[in-house]
């Protein structure tokens, strides 16, 4: 039955690629191409710019072009303040228009400057996106290194296949769901063709639920800025997608994983993503309810990316059950399963830390937003204090030895926790957030081990718990130096300890709770679907032998003699 599903999916994709409006542009025929690619939809829809010729103009130079103010309504004309403001704005616009007539070369130059500014932002977004793509390799190495050698081929394959599968799901409809109602892509030329957000009106206030434009990146989606946004957001989606493969490794059927892979990029990730980043209701909390600060703020994805992955991982690990041999009948750990390659784990962690320089600073979507330096340094500092705190905490208070696997979990926890607040905190704040996350991840790992949820790599603790903490820490540590106008709310983002009150904290708490509830439900449904179709857990014999040959047909380390002690101990379970 899965074969039928996959075949019909493939047919859909192929059909979609050939509908009108997606024919490849011919270099020598740009103008004609632009005409035929115009969407058949409402003529008021902004025209997409697939060739990038029209993107980046004088209005992208901040403060250069002065547009005329909107006409005042009959009511507004009675307000003297508004009338005065209108008069000033109209005068400024008229002055600009007159000056522009006198200096046509300046206007032409401004177009060039605008194009260059937008080009810098395109470059920034794309290159940081490429860095985040490389994090896939980091995740693959960390997860495989922490698992046993007999499962290396299988674990690596899950991490490998999630990249194309998540991407194609996102291309098919995930991007349209998440960003179909985004509106203007401000830093990359203000293309506003992704303008259909399905919105419910509750108590007179708008609650954006899901986007509905840009399917298969055609029509309104075939614009060069939309493409840049797609690439950047796709690699973020794939970071979420690859988190559960670590927790549920060593006993997850590859076919069940593939079913999850079809659903993560298409529906699981984009829903909450739309609510926070796509202009949906969690972002609108600030404008809808003035007591909730800027609404749910998440700069680079502690909740949108990491917590979503962590919650999915929690549900899957809980339902699939612990690995054979680790726990005895009473739920006590009788044989911890040690990593087969610490060098792989640490190399993978360094690759992730490097890729994070794309993850966080890239989320400005603008190389011209010079806060990127603060974001990058905050990211760096939190990774360091996270690693150090976890190491020392293990060494001095827990196991009396500095555990390499926890060093890595600590660094990653720091990175996850700083992902939401990185643009809004000071260096001291970043270091403190990293330090807390390093201790939090250790306690969290111990907790989940104790209650019988076998998470091979600590993904629930690194991504789920610290993703939540990262968002909440915006509500506490945001220092008010950045974020004016975020989510449509005037003023910078300020947390509790900087005089911002608790409004921002409550908004973050609402977001985090929503994430937990939504993804729990979605994960339960997906797990159930896979269970009905193919079953999630491998057979016990396969699990003991190692998944490489039974599931994948090829050993990960052909010809190498396995250390029998590293495989499942049969005696005590």
């Amino acid at each position, binding site marked *: 039955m899965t074969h039928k599903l996959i075949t019909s999916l493939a047919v859909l994709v192929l059909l979609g690629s050939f509908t009108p409006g997606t024919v490849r542009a011919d270099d020598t025929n740009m103008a004609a191409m632009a005409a035929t690619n115009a969407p058949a939809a409402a003529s008021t829809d902004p025209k997409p710019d697939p060739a990038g010729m029209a993107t980046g103009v004088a209005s992208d130079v901040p403060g250069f072009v002065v547009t005329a103010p909107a006409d005042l309504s009959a009511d507004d004309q009675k307000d003297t303040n508004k009338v005065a403001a209108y008069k000033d704005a109209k005068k400024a616009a008229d002055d600009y228009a007159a000056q522009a007539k006198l200096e046509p070369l300046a206007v032409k130059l401004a177009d060039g400057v605008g194009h260059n500014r937008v080009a810098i932002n395109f470059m920034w977004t794309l290159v940081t996106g490429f860095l985040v793509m490389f994090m896939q390799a980091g995740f693959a190495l960390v997860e495989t290194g922490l698992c046993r050698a007999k499962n290396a081929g299988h674990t690596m394959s899950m991490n490998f296949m999630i990249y194309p599968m998540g991407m194609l799901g996102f291309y098919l409809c995930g991007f349209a769901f998440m960003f179909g109602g985004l509106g203007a892509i401000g830093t990359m030329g203000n293309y506003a063709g992704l303008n259909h957000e399905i919105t419910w009106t509750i108590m007179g206030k708008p609650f954006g639920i899901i986007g509905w434009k840009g399917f298969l990146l055609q029509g309104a989606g075939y614009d060069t800025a939309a493409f840049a946004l797609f690439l950047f957001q796709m690699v973020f989606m794939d970071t979420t997608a690859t988190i559960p493969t670590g927790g549920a490794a060593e006993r997850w059927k590859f076919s069940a994983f593939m079913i999850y892979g079809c659903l993560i990029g298409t529906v699981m990730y984009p829903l909450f993503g739309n609510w926070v980043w796509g202009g949906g209701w969690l972002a609108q909390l600030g404008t809808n309810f003035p007591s909730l600060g800027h609404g749910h703020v998440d700069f680079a994805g502690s909740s949108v990316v990491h917590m979503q992955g962590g919650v999915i991982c929690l549900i899957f690990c809980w339902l699939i059950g612990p690995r054979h041999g680790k726990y005895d009948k009473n739920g006590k*750990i009788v*044989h*911890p399963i*040690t990593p087969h390659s610490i060098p792989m784990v640490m190399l993978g962690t360094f690759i992730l830390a490097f890729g994070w320089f794309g993850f966080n600073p890239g989320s400005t979507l603008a190389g011209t937003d010079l806060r990127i330096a603060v974001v990058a340094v905050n990211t760096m500092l939190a990774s360091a204090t996270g690693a150090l705190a976890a190491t020392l905490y293990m060494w001095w208070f*827990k*196991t*009396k*030895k500095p*555990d390499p*696997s*926890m060093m890595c979990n600590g660094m990653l926890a720091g990175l996850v926790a700083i992902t939401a607040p990185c643009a809004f905190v000071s260096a001291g704040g970043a270091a403190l957030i990293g330090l807390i996350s390093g201790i939090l991840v250790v306690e969290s*790992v*111990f907790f989940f*081990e*104790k209650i019988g949820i076998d998470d091979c790599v*600590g993904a629930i603790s690194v991504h789920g718990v610290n993703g939540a903490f990262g968002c909440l820490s915006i509500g506490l540590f945001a220092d008010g130096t950045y974020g004016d106008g975020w989510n449509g709310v005037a003023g910078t983002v300020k947390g509790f300890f900087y005089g911002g009150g608790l409004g921002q904290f409550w908004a973050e708490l609402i977001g985090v709770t929503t994430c937990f509830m939504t993804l729990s439900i979605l994960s339960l449904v997906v797990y159930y679907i896979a269970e009905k179709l193919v079953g999630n857990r491998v057979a016990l014999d396969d699990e003991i032998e190692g998944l490489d040959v039974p599931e994948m047909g090829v050993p990960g380390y052909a010809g190498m003699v396995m250390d*029998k*002690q590293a495989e499942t101990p049969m005696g005590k379970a």
Partner: protein
Amino acid sequence: MKKIEAIIKPFKLEEVKDTLGEIGVEGMTVTEVKGFGRQKGHTEIYRGSEYTVDFLPKIKLEIVLDDGRVEAAVAAIIKAAKTGKIGDGKIFVSPIDDAIRIRTEEKGPSAV
């Protein structure tokens, strides 16, 4: 003919090989094994859970010799492999019914 099986600490292999070479022992078979004796292993902790490390890596040497050379070979192995600390290993001597050299098909003591 007798077979000598010696379980020794891995880092002692080169020294044992050289010492045996000095008394004229020209061949051996070596395997990497794991084992423990009376002293057992020790406990470690991984992410908060204790586990015992019972098996320690060792090297097993197998040599087949003429009866008259066994005593000298055993003495050589002991001299080279002993550290005085626990885990030095053990030597076992057992009788061999026959030995054949595959290349020349000769049998008996001239084959070892």
